[in-house]
């Protein structure tokens, strides 16, 4: 009888100890996880970085056939005032022939203004083709000097290793001649 209660007590002691150990382990794990997050999150963009994430651009000085490059979030953004011929060329490409299938009209808000991030979708170099003097590649748009990706007058990938078209950032026309990117 005496031995019986003793083992029972031992048993209760055991479960209680196990419970405590489990609880302590859980608290330790939760605590550690909760501490790790602020340190990781501190490396995400800070509030001032996010606040500067939009850029306004005045389009008036850009003549037809000219391009400008502006900085947005530390990256170049290509803004091209396209000629009639370029628009026509872009619109006439059969979509099915493209690697990354996109209609030209889905890539522009106004056909004469092409706005896109000037970063090759292959490995992040800046394609040539912005200046008159630079080569525009086999499709009259842009060509990346790093690994030879050719983009057409809509900034779509036509030849070379890049998997996707040059990306179009979020932007809005504030007036007929100015836009805000981001």
């Amino acid at each position, binding site marked *: 009888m005496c031995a019986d209660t003793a083992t029972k007590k031992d048993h209760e002691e055991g479960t209680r100890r196990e419970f405590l*150990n489990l609880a*302590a382990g859980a*608290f330790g794990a939760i605590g550690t996880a909760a501490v790790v997050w602020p340190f990781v999150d501190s490396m995400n963009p800070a509030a001032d970085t996010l606040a*500067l994430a939009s850029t306004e651009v005045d389009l008036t000085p850009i003549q037809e056939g000219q391009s400008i490059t502006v900085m947005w979030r530390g990256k170049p953004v290509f803004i091209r005032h396209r000629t009639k011929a370029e628009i026509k060329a872009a619109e006439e490409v059969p979509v099915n022939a493209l690697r990354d299938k996109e209609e030209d009209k889905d890539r522009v808000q106004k056909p004469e203004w092409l706005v896109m991030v000037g970063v090759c979708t292959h490995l992040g170099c800046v394609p040539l083709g912005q200046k008159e003097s630079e080569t525009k590649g086999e499709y009259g748009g842009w060509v990346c000097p790093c690994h030879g990706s050719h983009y057409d007058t809509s900034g779509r990938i036509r030849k070379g290793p890049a998997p996707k078209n040059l990306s179009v950032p979020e932007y809005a026309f504030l007036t007929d001649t100015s836009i805000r990117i981001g």
Partner: protein
Amino acid sequence: MKNSILSILVVACAVIGSVQVASAAGDAKTPRQMDWSFSGPFGTYDKAALQRGFLVFKSVCASCHSLDLIAFRNLEALGYEEGQIKNIAAEYTVMDGPNDEGDMFERPARPSDYFPSPFANTAAAKYANNGAYPPDLSLITKARKDGANYVYSLLTGYKDAPEYVQLMSGQHYNPYMAGGVIAMAAPLSDDQVAYEDETPTTADQYAKDVVQFLNWAAEPEMEARKRMGVKVLFFLSIFALVMYGVKRKIWHDVH
């Protein structure tokens, strides 16, 4: 042994405590102790008071004092909507550039811009203020001992100078300022700023509101900090109890 160590600890704490007080002493009068909505471990900012305080800052303090560390986007914490913030920002002009022609140009401020300073630089500020530099106010309540109470006491504590204090022109008497002499004239007077709500438009109320605003400017993280602190302390207290249980169980058969 235990008692003697305890008493040493008590003395040590008392000394550390008094160090805090003593280092502040100087010649200045101890600030009046106010009961702020943001004091205490659960204190929060009063949004209405923050907005009124901002109004007072904008219409009174800002004519001489800068607020370098605050951007218009930060005003969201005062309870303003995005559109309101844009409108507030647009009231100010900031220098930008260079443009394509290489010139600097002025444009209306955007939410991402910081509050423009009233003076181009320190020298200009000193020149315009009889040689006294109006300090930046973004950290003022942290940069002074007992900051919130100090700023409030200073703003409401102007008095006629006692006989033994000789003031030069451009100087004023304020017992809360170290040395009693201050270059800033009493900035607040009754009915100086129109409030949109029913709050009394007295100098005392302005001072309270602007202190609320300045304390926010110095410690915008305060509410988040205290909220997190309550959770952390709660968590740790339970954890400590559990660990105490674990430790006791383990040591049970040793003692």
